[in-house]
């Protein structure tokens, strides 16, 4: 009975943590997406995000830095950009870089004591990941083979039919309504991710949670797995690592931050709504291998000061 209650408690904490940490970013993403839908024309978006491949990818990353689109919110904005005719590489770069480079996550990293180095590492890795991912996707000339076109929002910012027959409606109201619709549309995915993450957290053995005892590789693996299952936001990741600075190994801290930023339960579900399975698989493999490589490179140079 005690074991069941313990598992139930772990499930509850895991579920609510994923839900509560992601909801703010989802709401911000919904608002940003609604603003893009109503304040920018297709021509504006295409002028910025559809030029030469490298240029458009860099614009995508810059947009991710400026816009508050971390942790899931970036998927909503990327989807809206695609609907408005942005190139797939640019939208993918924005989506991939969002969690690691957004101003909220960067600000939280710089503001947290002793975390500036790790936050900087995450920022740089996010940019490299987004750049590589964008350039890989640029090799495919047919967008339909990369994205699920049927899941793009409808023309008119989704609130078109809702507002039909209401005459002149202010843009502010249209933005708020579109944001509500997008937020509610993505909410089931968040709840499914939280259920899945909470369940897996409750089921895996307690010894697998960081700090894991054993070799460095085992500690890193435990840390990476935990980052994927806890699916914390970019801000929550930082706080967790900061709280475990004394007990986690340096490698485990890095892996937790880098993997958590790129691949976790909720992000896989969110990205899977836009990208086809094959692309999603590329993304997971790319981010895991790059995180590992970044860790090895830093290790060979004696770690972060």
């Amino acid at each position, binding site marked *: 009975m005690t074991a069941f209650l313990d598992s139930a408690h772990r499930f509850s*904490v895991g579920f*609510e943590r994923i839900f509560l940490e992601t909801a703010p970013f989802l709401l911000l993403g919904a608002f940003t997406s609604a603003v893009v839908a109503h304040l920018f024309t297709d021509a504006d978006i295409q002028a910025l995000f559809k030029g030469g491949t490298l240029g458009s990818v860099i614009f995508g990353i810059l947009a991710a830095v400026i816009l508050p689109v971390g942790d899931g919110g970036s998927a909503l904005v990327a989807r809206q950009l695609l609907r408005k005719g942005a190139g797939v590489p640019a939208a993918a770069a924005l989506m991939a870089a969002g969690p690691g480079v957004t101003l909220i996550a960067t600000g939280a990293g710089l503001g947290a004591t002793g975390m500036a180095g790790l936050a900087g590492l995450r920022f740089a890795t996010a940019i490299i990941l987004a750049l590589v991912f964008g350039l890989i996707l640029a090799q495919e000339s047919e967008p339909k083979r990369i994205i699920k076109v049927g899941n793009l929002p409808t023309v008119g910012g989704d609130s078109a039919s*809702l507002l039909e*027959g209401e005459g002149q409606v202010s843009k502010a109201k249209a933005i708020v309504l579109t944001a*509500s619709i997008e937020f509610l549309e993505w*909410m089931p995915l968040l709840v499914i991710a939280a259920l899945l993450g909470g369940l897996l957290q409750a089921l895996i053995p307690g010894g697998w949670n960081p700090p894991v005892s054993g070799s460095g590789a085992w500690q890193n693996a435990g840390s990476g797995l935990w980052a994927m299952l806890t699916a914390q936001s970019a*801000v929550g990741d930082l706080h967790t690592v900061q*709280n475990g600075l004394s007990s986690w190994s340096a490698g485990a801290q890095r892996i937790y931050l880098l993997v958590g930023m790129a691949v976790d339960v909720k992000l896989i579900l969110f990205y899977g709504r836009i990208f086809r399975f094959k692309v999603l698989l590329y993304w997971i493999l790319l981010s895991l291998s790059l995180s590992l490589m970044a860790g090895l490179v830093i290790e060979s140079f004696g770690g972060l000061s």
Partner: protein
Amino acid sequence: MKRNARIKFSALALAVLGLFQLSLIWDGRLADYVDPRQGILVFLTGLGCVILAQVVLSTAGKRSTNTVENDGHKEDSDAEGSWKSAGLIWLVVPLMVFLLFR
């Protein structure tokens, strides 16, 4: 009227979600789930959901008025249009998990 009812239900769901998040801060249980330093994000989200609910509800009210004035000619024409909120029942899950496993 089907779509109008759905809009009202969406507003209700948003309000419940917003109040749920605000209540977690109010009774201090937020610290059981997330780092308290993220309280400001949760607070703003809760507040945002309540405001969204109010705006969505006001739209529903306006639509009702228009429907009466227009003798209800167009209301049900695209009841299954782009108002993609069919999964609203999902919003109940966080509350259930909170209440059952707290």
